[in-house]
């Protein structure tokens, strides 16, 4: 259960938002909306503990996330604007490296299943620098296929994806919510997530 109270963020001497609070239970998704530059990405980074809020607190299962430290990070999966993949490594190596980093080990077949799910089978041994922007994005998203961690924080996951991929990803998130997981995400396209209750938070 994720909870935040009167979060405040200041960039330069402009206050982006203040008094922001929300609550996400198991199986629920928080849909973050706001114009460009309203601090959506900053709020997501605050939830992950990358950025410290000027005021306010974020609690995971009742405990402040910075005090939890690794315990919280074991439950957290963050996907930002950047793909977080190494250009020199192949999709196969990228996926197994990111899994091992999260503390799990993926077998060869599981990795290949994930790549097949994003339609990259046949390119698993090609260094990522030869892939297109959309394909690199799908390598980054392939990480979510076997993702067991409870809290997904996704920053505009649907960008640069074709219609089929958007549908696939929406289904994946829906399945995650059904398993009792939680998700916080931002997006500009209108996407309906098949399962779980959707809460909305508008950053003015």
């Amino acid at each position, binding site marked *: 259960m994720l909870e935040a109270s009167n979060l405040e963020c200041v960039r*330069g001497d402009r206050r982006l938002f203040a008094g922001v609070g929300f609550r996400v239970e198991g199986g629920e998704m928080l849909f973050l909306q706001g114009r460009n530059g309203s601090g959506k990405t900053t709020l997501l980074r605050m939830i992950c503990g990358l950025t410290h809020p000027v005021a306010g607190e974020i609690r995971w299962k009742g405990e402040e996330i910075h005090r939890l430290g690794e315990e919280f990070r074991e439950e957290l999966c963050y996907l930002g604007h950047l793909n977080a993949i190494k250009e020199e490594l192949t999709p196969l190596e990228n996926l197994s490296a990111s899994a091992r980093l999260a503390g799990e080990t993926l077998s060869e077949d599981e990795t290949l299943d994930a790549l097949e799910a994003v339609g990259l089978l046949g390119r698993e041994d090609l260094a990522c620098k030869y892939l297109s922007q959309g394909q690199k994005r799908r390598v980054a998203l392939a990480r979510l296929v076997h993702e067991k961690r409870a809290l997904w924080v996704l920053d505009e996951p649907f960008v640069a994806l074709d219609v089929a991929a958007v549908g696939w990803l929406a289904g994946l998130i829906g399945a995650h919510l059904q398993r009792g997981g939680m998700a916080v995400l931002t997006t500009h396209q209108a996407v309906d997530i098949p399962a779980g209750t959707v809460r909305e938070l508008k950053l003015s």
Partner: protein
Amino acid sequence: MNNRLINWFKYASPQSFYPLAGKMIPWFVALATVFGLAGLWLGMVVAPTDFQQGEGYRIIFIHVPASWMSMFIYLVMAFWAALGLAYNTRLSGMMAQALAPTGALMAFLSLWTGALWGKPMWGTWWVWDARLTSELILLFLYIGFIALQASIDDPRRADKAGAVLALVGVVNIPIIYFSVKWWNTLHQGSSVSLTKSPSMAILMLWAMLLMALSFWMYSIAVALYRARTIMLERERGTEWVREVLQQEGAK
């Protein structure tokens, strides 16, 4: 204990510190002047000639205080750095940033006066003495700190990055000093070194102490003044700064 400490820091917020510092600066300037004049009078006018080094030894009355201050200011910066990292107070970053230039100038003064003192005594402008070499490295640490803070735009990141560097620096200072001392005695023996300062008559000790106090008051005054300017700049969006600006306008 923790919450009592926290609200103590509430008073150390820039808004309440700004007027406080404003009142204190004139006092520190006055003290610096009084101690300075007394020290100069004792050291330069009344103190006798040193039988070994003649009149040249009088440079010690600013060389040693400058060296002490350059070291002391770095320690104070590290103190503010630790405070800032532990309690996330905005004021500590500002104080560290305000102190750095004065510390760097003190280190430069120590080197300059050390060289001018070394020339008549040992015939060379620069002596690879353990203390002078460590002072040179300390100047590099200061320049590194100032350069790092100057190259980071976001003030909060600049404070924290500077704090980490100051703490890493303060841990390394003793290591650097002893390795330079080892290196100095290893290669040259201690024949050429400033450690053999002239025998200090009581009068000279008093002069040195007064000059050190004067340098200390001076450093506090300049640092507080610069800290106030930094506070105005960093909190320019706040209400209390607008009021201060109105009063400034009236004055």
